[in-house]
């Protein structure tokens, strides 16, 4: 028996098969019927990314049948989040675009992604994601040791098809990488984030991408030209190309709020040569002082003290935590400031909703759903896994 060539054969049969695929797409692209079986399959596929086994399908369908309404759907979704592909596929692809400047999902696994996956698995309060001394590594055999100088550990885990759900182990950046504990700021100080956003430039990229990824807002959405301009650094030209209207109408809108907060990263840099994040306590990185002659009367960064100017003005709607001081030193306290906002929670819920429901929450009903899920996310210990479960239960099919 010789069938080894059939898989990649170029005969007429496979071509006919491909044509048939397209035909089936056309036939099946219609709303699913919303019986327990269909709902269970959809919830599982949306969460786990793959079709359920017969046993799991039966278990979930039974759960849906046993409790009418959201309770049954939620019970089924809870079963789905125990699938390994929820971590290996869905969460990995959910997080990977946050970890690089191109925002591409086609990037290797790194410590940023692994840490989010681990935090979700262990229900670590996600509002600490930008401030905690936390790092997840895999204890699977045959992997290179985690290193602050490369991502080999994670790349090998992905290449080997390691089951992240069962092998991720919680640790600390200070313990694994040797980063001073006070200098750790959750995902911000992972090697993945540092290599992407502390590389070259002025460290503003770290802030901008944190806004994109965790506030669901790029800088133009956060512009407020009324904030004091006192902390805008010297490298920002006040008359770009000889036209100060650009500065007064645009540049100042972001830099007046961003620069005082980016100061928190003044001691961080990513050294491409050594492949490591650098932290120089007490020593402002030279990148904060470049192009000083663009505007000599701009702000000269003396240390890593940051100030949140967005607590007033239009960005007060981001929902800052009144119990926090709104200023501090270093990335850790800034990360706590950002993680405690309503906008941070809102963004996590919206992202999950889109990932699970395959649509943006823009209808009245979806906006209400997001508000409900966000409320329970904030009051229930910031468990992101629960958000996945609730979102999947909210769109189980018609």
């Amino acid at each position, binding site marked *: *028996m010789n069938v*080894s060539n*059939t*898989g*990649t054969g170029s*005969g*007429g*049969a*496979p071509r*006919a*098969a*491909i044509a048939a*695929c397209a035909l*089936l*797409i056309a*036939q*099946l*692209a*219609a709303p699913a*019927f919303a019986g327990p*079986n*269909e709902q*269970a*399959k959809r919830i599982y*596929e949306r969460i786990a*990314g793959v*079709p359920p*086994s*017969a046993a799991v*399908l*039966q278990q979930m369908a039974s759960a849906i049948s046993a409790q009418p309404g959201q309770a049954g759907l939620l019970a089924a979704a809870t079963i789905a989040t125990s699938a390994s*592909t929820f971590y290996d596929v869905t969460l*990995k*692809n959910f997080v990977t675009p946050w970890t690089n400047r191109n925002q591409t999902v086609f990037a290797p696994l790194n410590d940023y992604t692994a840490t989010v996956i681990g935090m979700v698995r262990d229900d670590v309060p996600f509002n600490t994601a930008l401030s905690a001394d936390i790092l997840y590594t895999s204890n699977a055999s045959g992997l290179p040791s985690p290193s602050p100088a490369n991502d080999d550990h994670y790349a090998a885990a992905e290449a080997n*098809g390691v089951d992240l759900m069962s092998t991720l182990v919680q640790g600390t950046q200070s313990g694994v990488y040797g980063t001073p504990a006070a200098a750790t700021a959750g995902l911000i100080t992972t090697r993945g984030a540092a290599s992407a956003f502390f590389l070259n430039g002025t460290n503003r990229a770290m802030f901008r991408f944190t806004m994109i990824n965790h506030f669901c807002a790029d800088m133009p959405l956060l512009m407020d030209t*009324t904030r*004091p*301009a*006192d902390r805008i650094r010297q490298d920002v*030209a*006040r*008359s770009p*190309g*000889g*036209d100060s*209207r650009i*500065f*007064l109408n645009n540049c*100042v809108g972001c830099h007046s709020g961003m620069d005082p907060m980016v100061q928190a990263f003044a001691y961080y840099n990513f050294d491409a040569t050594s492949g490591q994040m650098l932290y120089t306590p007490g020593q402002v990185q030279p990148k904060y002082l470049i192009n000083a*002659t*663009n505007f000599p*009367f701009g702000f000269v960064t003396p240390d890593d003290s940051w100030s949140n100017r967005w607590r007033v*003005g*239009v960005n*007060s*709607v981001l929902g800052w935590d009144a119990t926090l001081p709104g200023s501090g030193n270093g990335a850790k306290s800034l990360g706590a400031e950002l993680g405690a906002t309503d906008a941070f929670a809102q963004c996590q819920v919206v992202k999950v909703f889109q990932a699970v429901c*395959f*649509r943006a929450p823009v*209808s009245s009903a979806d906006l209400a759903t997001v508000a409900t899920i966000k409320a329970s996310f904030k009051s229930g210990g910031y468990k992101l896994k629960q958000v996945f479960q609730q979102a999947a239960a909210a*769109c189980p099919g018609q």
Partner: protein
Amino acid sequence: MFREPSTLRLAHALRRVAPALVLLAALAACSSSGGPATAVNPVTTPPSNVQNYTGPAPANADVQAFKINLWQNVIPSDRCGGCHHQGGQSPQFARSDDVNLAYQAALPLVNLINPSQSELVLKVGSGHNCWVADPSACAATMQTWIQNWIGAGSSSTTQVQLVAPPVQSAGGGKQFPADPTVGNPSYQSTVYPLLTKFCSGCHNPASASAQQPYFADPNNIDAAYIAAQPKINLATPNESRFYVRLATEFHHCWPTPTSNGAPDCAGSSAAMLAAITAFANGIPVTPIDPSLVVSNAVTLTQGTIASGGSRYEANLVAKYMFETGQGGTAYDTSGVTPEADLTLSGNVSWVGGWGIAIGAGGSAQASTSASQKLAAMIQSSGEYSIEAWAAPADVTQTNAWIVSYSGSNTTRNVTLGQSATQYEGLTRSSVTDTNGMPPMLTTTTGGAAQAALQHVVLTYDPVNGQKLYVNGADTGAVDPSKGGTFANWDSTFALVLGNETTGQRQWQGVIKFVAIHNRALTLAQVQQNFAAGVGQKYYLLFGVDGLSGVSQSYILFQASQYDNYSYLFYQPKFISLDPNATIPANLQVSGLRLGVNGVLAPAGQAFATMNVTVGGSNYSATNGQLLSSLGTVIPVELGPANDLFFLSFDQFGSHTHTYVEPPVTVTPPTPNNTPQPDFGVATFERVNDSLSRITGVATTDPVVSALYNSSQQAMPATPLISAFLSSQQTAVSELANSYCGELLASPALRDAFFGSGLDASLNASAATFFAGSLSPNRMIVINALLTNAVGTNGGSYVNPDSATAVQSEVDALLTRIPTLAPAATVSQATVAACTAVLGSAVVTLQ
């Protein structure tokens, strides 16, 4: 840095004369001998009659310096010598018979402390017999001559005399309406008709003799309105330039009904004043918030001029300060004859605060004859420096010449250019070709060129060749062709800014200053000129007596017009002009905000967070107390002559005001209830893992993983159904085909999937084995695919419609295969059926 010790004596001496006057030495001290005779003489071409001087020899070195630097330049009959000669009009400082007597006559006319305030400078600057069309050019030239005389070229003599401004309350102001057609009466119905009727012959872009600003453009009232605003004084209409230009400068007055066809300046200026007054009267005053804690108010031009006298200019060949602000000529104010004045052509406009903006198609070029002095003077020294204050419009333009002394795209003497983020220098010498090649470029990594105002200096000396300095620092660029001489320079070339003489090397941006020297400036000299800055700077005194309780106390700001659209304010100080003033201890000053015309500036408030305790050891009577080292830009509203600035404070001593943030309007998201797709497409890794899950073939299987790794980016990256492409379907099908092939190739997986019913017939003919619609053999394949791909629960399919469709399609496919591929085997047909289902929406639609 405001005062250095040797200037203290001068300051105290003058303070005795004028108690309300404080002298502040802005830079270095003047010569301790009091006699300014140490300047390096500029290399100039003296007027011919100087060589014929037969009078008494200069009595001392200072007279000699006077003779060389000032006297020989003013004695020609077309300048001051036409009247102020011996036996002529007094004072006879331009007499040619005795330079010592001329020196005596000139001394009272020169301010050695602040040359810009010399009587000679002020007189020609006011238009008194200026020998070129622009009085400001004469003033600048005269100042240069005086500075050369007293030694400004080698050491600074500049001091700043702070003069208390008139006391003005920070009342409300008038703002130009945004729309020229709105108002009672509107601009459109008052001033605009006069301008379009009488001024559009020149101040109109469509005119054959078009001259900026285009405030009389009859085809674009919005653009004309913006251009006209700086010429209209809403607060004091009779100070409007439109009126003054007609009333006292007699500029193109028009005939009136009573003038019998002759230009009638009185009549036309009265008509203009009436129109402006009517327009201004129709604009209500914007009242200032009475709760604010405010300083007195001041306009920019009421400030004390901080003249830039600290530049090193001992070897000038040409200098352009772009002070004129209108017309088509930028004057060479180097004082070195012949003046190589630049003719502005094409898309060039004047920039507030001195400068020109060069756009696409613009350039500023001197005549070839006037440019000859560059070749003559630079060839004789074998060195040069081209110095420019320039703001590139962007950092993408390449082959863009900022300053060029050249003849064509391929022939030049010297060029300073921009190439994206690099500056480049091209100098023709004995070791380069006639195009100055190879060029010297700054590094790409250095990013020397920024879209910001920069001080760029290209120097050449035989030892180092070219060097490039940016903002007072050597870029480190190394000239690949050192050691040349300029014997092969071509004196028929022209000096051109912003382009090549051919118009094919366009540079866009703002140029605020250009100087050409026939010596290579040293690093120290470059830094000196960089530190001197550019443009007209002022010291603004905002009276705060009423707030501080300190007599003659002020907040002192340094300020300038930064560009057409903003003012620069920086480094505020608290200072009292009363030397005997007592500053109370712990005088708190916080929350300083800048206001314009009764309204706080909406953006750029860099001092709003300031919180300073004034007094004690931080304050000195001579220097005051620096409140902040920062600066900011504030938008231009009515123009530098009219914008009335004031300061407000959250706290000044016992006076407090709680700043109220602008109201925040929160707009909740507007729901969009347009139905959206309720389903999506499995993305790349979901497809891969789904196929693995269904077939049992591991994702690490070498065949499938190789295909997956090479084709994953061809599969969907997003679940959006609207983004799904046919090419992605092809990639999915290919992967499904690979999985199905591996499934059939593995007996264990195959049997788990299909059972053992196919095992004995894999290489049999598909036509025979699968004969008959929904035959038992076909059902082996169909049922297996339904069970594994569609899924079952409790004996029924998860989605019965899908199951029906799959059964129907697979059955039809197995019917068609023998006609498409008669030799197809059972395994091939099974793979085809498997691929059809696994690559279909049954799997990929989620």
